[in-house]
């Protein structure tokens, strides 16, 4: 980054440190903090939305909604996270590409599934293989966000539906006595009173969400843990600056021809 960093052999002490912590690799490390924080700050509200829908569905008086809601909450909580983190992004990606293939390349007759291969026409790729790298990154980020929202939505849903059950029945009955409709009771009493019971569980989920972010690399996003591992890993002479490589190469060649 600084001009004096050009020749690493001359560096010492603080000068060396200032060069070391400003390499492009370190910069990627710093940026990954923002990426991860951006992800969790978007995943948390998304999980709340999924959870809220799940909790309401699970408590619905309509049987079908109740089954869907309870199924969602129980299934996601019962199956290991890592399965969903692998399944949702790949399945969503393939579903999108499958739809695009059907719409954009309707003239292609070759099957999409050829043995192990999932082959869609070039125009149906999402993102296109010609797209710049940031588009690929953004797409991966969105898929990861959906996966996090979906999985943590189930946890949130369980906390919320538990909190709704914990609101004292007498309070709801009081609302009824005042002539509130069921809808009004839900909105004006249940929804407000439940937060007291939901908050401890939600703050715990927030911690779990933060802890789960290293799963991001599974989804192809280079997160904090990836760069930390990369920076802390074993380094041999191979990692030396490119300039040094060329230098060594030129010295070695004459030896070989002796």
């Amino acid at each position, binding site marked *: 980054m600084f001009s004096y960093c050009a020749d690493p052999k001359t560096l010492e002490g603080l000068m060396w440190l200032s060069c070391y912590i400003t390499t492009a690799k370190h910069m990627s490390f710093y940026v990954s903090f923002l990426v991860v924080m951006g992800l969790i700050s978007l995943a948390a509200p998304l999980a709340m939305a999924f959870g809220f829908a799940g909790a309401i569905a699970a408590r619905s008086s309509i049987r079908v909604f109740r089954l869907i809601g309870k199924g969602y909450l129980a299934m996601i909580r019962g199956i290991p996270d890592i399965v969903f983190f692998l399944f949702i992004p790949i399945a969503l990606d393939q579903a999108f590409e499958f739809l695009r293939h059907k719409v954009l390349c309707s003239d292609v007759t070759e099957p999409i599934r050829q043995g192990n291969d999932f082959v869609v026409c070039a125009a149906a790729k999402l993102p296109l293989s010609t797209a710049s790298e940031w588009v690929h990154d953004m797409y991966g980020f969105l898929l990861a966000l959906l996966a996090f929202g979906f999985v943590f939505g189930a946890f949130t849903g369980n906390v919320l539906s538990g909190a709704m059950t914990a609101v004292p029945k007498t309070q709801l009955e009081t609302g009824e006595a005042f002539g509130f409709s069921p809808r009004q009771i839900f909105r004006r009493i249940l929804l407000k009173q439940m937060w007291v019971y939901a908050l401890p569980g939600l703050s715990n989920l927030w911690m779990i969400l933060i802890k789960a972010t290293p799963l991001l690399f599974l989804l192809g996003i*280079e997160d904090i843990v990836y760069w930390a591992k990369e920076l802390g890993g074993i380094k041999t002479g*191979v990692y030396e600056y490119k300039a040094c490589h060329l230098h060594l190469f030129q010295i*070695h060649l004459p030896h070989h021809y002796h």
Partner: protein
Amino acid sequence: MKKILLSAFAALFMVGSAFADTVRMGTEGAYPPYNFINDNGEVDGFEKDVGDMLCIRANLDCVWVINEWDSIIPNLVSGNYDTIIAGMSITAERDEVIDFTQDYFPPSPSVYMGLSGSDVDVDGGVIAAQTATIQAGYVAESGATLVEFATAEETISAVQNGEADAVLADGDYLSSIIAESNGEFANVGEVSIGGGVGMGVRESDGALKAKMDKAISSMKEDGSLNALIKKWFGNDANTF
């Protein structure tokens, strides 16, 4: 809300304008000197040099993608990138799932690396290897106890902290670690397993395979491949 959903749906079906032959090259970025991430945060190594030159010769526009070793084949077949160029030996088992080009790196021996001065029983001891490598497969059948790790680097740590007696990996990966360990590690045995290293492509992608095969042949013929092998693996490395 409806509008947002609609426009998101419409965006899903937008068509891009140009279709140049862009090939996405998938690599691990954690197996020096084959492939690693340099101080600029970019892919570097023998395979970066070879891959870039192959793309020039085959007239393709290449971009590099990093993917962890564990899921490198599933992501190729589901189309997230188009080639695997990650020090992957050509084996019959892998060939059932994906296709390989001809080798761009000749077969070279695998090495058992243990602590210097330790007496390692390579056929009965505890041997570390990276998951889903030919070395892991070999150790599992050799009678030794296999401990698998997701990255090559963790196998080295396992030897360092005594969890494993030795690690089995490509000699070219271990040689610089042995040489620069100040005598902590030593070569405690060698075996020849696996064929050469080739580029993995989808079985349905015959056109790309043919282009790459042709480019590799041309690099073998004019000696530029051998020059790159010597640049990255030293003058004693096997060449074509």
